[in-house]
């Protein structure tokens, strides 16, 4: 079971993702530098959080043009699972692998705190370990996490069941207060139409060890590892 974690200049959750997948789940992780022109045939790809290229210009906009992203695109087109977390989600929207965009938090502030998200779909390769309606507690840490897409796109996402995670309260109910960054339809995570590319704003790699707090991130990363093991 091997996972490629793509590292851009300015990524800062790459090592956290590596540690969570290796120490927590026994996956073999390779950190792949952004100039790489091959991924090395992994069972899954993770695009981690951070401030790729300093988030200059626009979050994820420069990273989307790094050489490695052509490989990620090809990998996704072959059906390989790709999970983008936080800045990774922003990179996936900027590169067109996922629809929509992550806009500035309405608070105009960086927000770092635990949120609750409700699992809307429980399917491989990203959420097979969860059940629909499960409420997961994970941290967010972002300036630009307010998911935006136009009405037509939202309709497609909802109609095709591509909203994977939605901000909610502890009981699993969506509310304005629980939608911490004003995302359209309280969207915290989505997949592409084929279901093999997912982006999410919360950080599952920060929620896999009881020493640090809730371990609900295992529902995501564990599912990814399970899928990889089946594929391998």
């Amino acid at each position: 079971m091997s996972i490629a974690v793509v590292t851009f200049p300015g990524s800062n959750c790459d090592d956290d993702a590596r540690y969570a997948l290796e120490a927590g789940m026994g996956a073999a992780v390779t950190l792949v530098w952004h100039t790489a022109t091959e991924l090395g045939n992994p069972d899954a790809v993770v695009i981690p959080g951070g401030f790729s290229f300093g988030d200059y210009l626009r979050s994820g906009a420069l990273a989307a043009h790094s050489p490695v992203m052509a490989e990620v695109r090809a990998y996704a087109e072959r059906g390989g699972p790709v999970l983008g977390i936080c800045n990774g989600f922003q990179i996936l929207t900027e590169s067109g692998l996922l629809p929509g965009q992550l806009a500035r938090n309405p608070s105009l502030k960086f927000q770092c705190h635990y949120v609750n998200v409700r699992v809307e779909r429980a399917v491989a390769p990203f959420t097979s370990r969860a059940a629909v309606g499960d409420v997961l507690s994970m941290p967010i840490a972002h300036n630009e996490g307010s998911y935006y897409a136009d009405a037509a796109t939202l309709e497609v996402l909802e109609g095709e069941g591509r909203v994977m995670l939605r901000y909610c309260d502890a009981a699993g109910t969506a509310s304005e207060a629980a939608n911490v960054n004003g995302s359209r339809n309280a969207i915290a995570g989505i997949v592409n139409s084929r279901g093999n590319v997912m982006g999410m704003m919360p950080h599952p790699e920060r929620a896999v060890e009881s020493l640090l707090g809730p371990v609900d991130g295992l529902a995501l990363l564990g599912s990814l590892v399970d899928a990889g093991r089946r594929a391998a």
Partner: protein
Amino acid sequence: MSVMPRQERPAVDERASLRPMANSFGLSFEEFDDVVSRMGREPNTLEAGVFGALWSEHCGYKNSRPLLRRLPTTGPQVLQGPGENAGVVDIGQGYGLAFKMESHNHPSAVEPVQGAATGVGGILRDIFAMGARPIAVLDSLRFGELDNERSRHLLAGVVSGIALYGNAIGVPTVGGELETNACYQENPLVNVMALGLLRHEDLQKGTVGAVGNQLYYVGSKTGRDGLGGAVFASADLSAASAADRPAVQVGDPYLEKLLLEACLAAIAADLVAGVQDMGAAGLSSSVGEMAHRAGMGVDLHIDKVPRREDGMTPLEVMLSESQERMVLTAKPGKEAALVTLLERWGLDVVAIGEVVDNGMLRIIEHGTVVGSLPVSALNEPPTYVRDGVEDPVIVAARTRDLGDLPEPGDLNGVLLTLLGAPGIASKAAIYRQFDHQVMTNSVVLPGQADAAVLRVKGTSLGVAATVDCNSRYVYLDPYLGAAHAVAEAARNIACVGATPLGVTDNLNFGNPTVPAVYYQLERAVDGISAACLALGTPVTGGNVSLYNQFRQGEGHEAIHPTPTIGMVGVISDVALRATQSFKRDDDVVVLLGAFAPVQGASEYLFRIHGLEAGSPPALDLVAEAAVQRVVRDLVAAGICDTAHDVSTGGLAVAAAEMAMAGGKGARLTLSATANVPLPARSDTLLFGETAATVLAAVPRQHLPAVHEACLAAGVAVSELGIVGGSDLSVSSTSRDLLSLSVAEMRAAHEHTFAEALG
């Protein structure tokens, strides 16, 4: 370097002596004469400028160095004491912990966002210059009162500056403290502490090493930003300071992230003989200090320095404080490998000089020596020992009779007011803007405990860190107040279950040439020394920030003396630790230590009666060490997981904080015991402050073990009541004193900064 200097003597300015202009270089006339005598000739403009910067208070510690020699700096755990970029202590299992605190007060007063951001950037460079990977940042902040618009502006700017830099570079901001007082309105304090982890064998020094070694400039290009910052930091602030905005640097956390990774990779590859950050006074101080530590000289080819703008003079290049720049010395024979590695990170890498054995820093421009400076003289500025005299106004405030103050009827109201006081109020609106979890080591999050706790991956170890200073204590009694700062820091470390290992101090004071200020500085240093000796925490480094005062017309408004103490500790098994929160119904609340509350210097006196008066609580360092040891041992034995020190706001505030953190109330009854007589006044009992006291909660079955441990250590213990319900109620044996719901208390606690930060 193959360019040979064409002439040995620098070009001396044609015109007459620079002595009349000494002040414009930041030198007194006497200091200028000292330079002449040590050089054996008149300096030229470049040389005088470099001397002025390195002999500034900020770089040269002229007024503080003789006092700093009084601090204890040694111990078996010390791997690196003062004099390097940061101190390092041994935490076991082959790991060292690098840590250091620095101020960015004056830049933050003028431009709070960049001032604070570059404060974070600067201290992180000090950490990775030691070969350590930065793992955490803590902040100690002081502003004017929050009803003042300028104070709110500075607060919002400083918070977003810390967030801007720390979040982007990916080092968690895990803790801190904040006080407000009108004395900081014009001159806020921004002290940033950073921690880093290293393997013993990777410890680096800021040295040029041996003759023939090549010096490399790495990182951002040099511009005119931050010009004269060291001198700026060493002068009083005034209304004209806003015109000094070019003296404030602009930070680029993205570039520093690359620099951090590149430097650590170069160290790991064993390519580096020495590393130094370019901080205050830029190239001058970094190259000067590296040469001085090695007892060497350097030929510095100033024309090679990458520049951001044209037309910069050698002096401007030497003094620029452009951020994100380092000097590295290559190990002999590894120059090409070093350059290749650094360039892989897209960084500017230029050979700028070589090590020579003549003890001179020669500044060479296109083959011509334009300045020639004796390295030892640069780094050994004159020092001043002054006579301090205590301000009689402060003596009068300290000795004021407090017995005549009216006792408030509504004690619930007093508690709610104190819970909303900025020094006590919830800082959630602040720390939620900081990424405090990146690197996935944050075991104890901000607001949960008396100190931050980080695990060390791959080991059972935990690292604890805190920053503390009650500046009102120091104002009213500098010796006692500074000792309290150390004692409270160590108590905070003990309350999470950690053993304190070392201290970094950030001495923020006013103008040292004022006898009343010098008195505060001298007495505070002595207080720190006494407490550090008693508690086994050597000082491994720190920072002195003087001239923190605002000039208004003829008057000078000095800040409260603020010797911020940063302390680190270690937990051998991080699974066994304590936090503040009440965790289980029916746990027994116990008070440990020499509870002896007084109103003097208390937050209660200040916020309710508007007085900064009286003497701070007495401090018995033996009793302090004893209660800390008991708490630490109980936590390490798994007997206690709930502990919080009784400090600002007294017993009632401590209990309220534990209730709010856990979302559980408690019913407490305060009664005198053989060991603990109680004060007659209810306000003193509830809100009076004390040292050497910890409030803890333990499951009932562990009570015998608690009593046994306290008996053995000679520490007083009393059972106050039990955890449970949704209200905190406190009574004496004769009457009910206060009763509030957790929800009411939280509302008061969270309101202050939520409102101040919009």
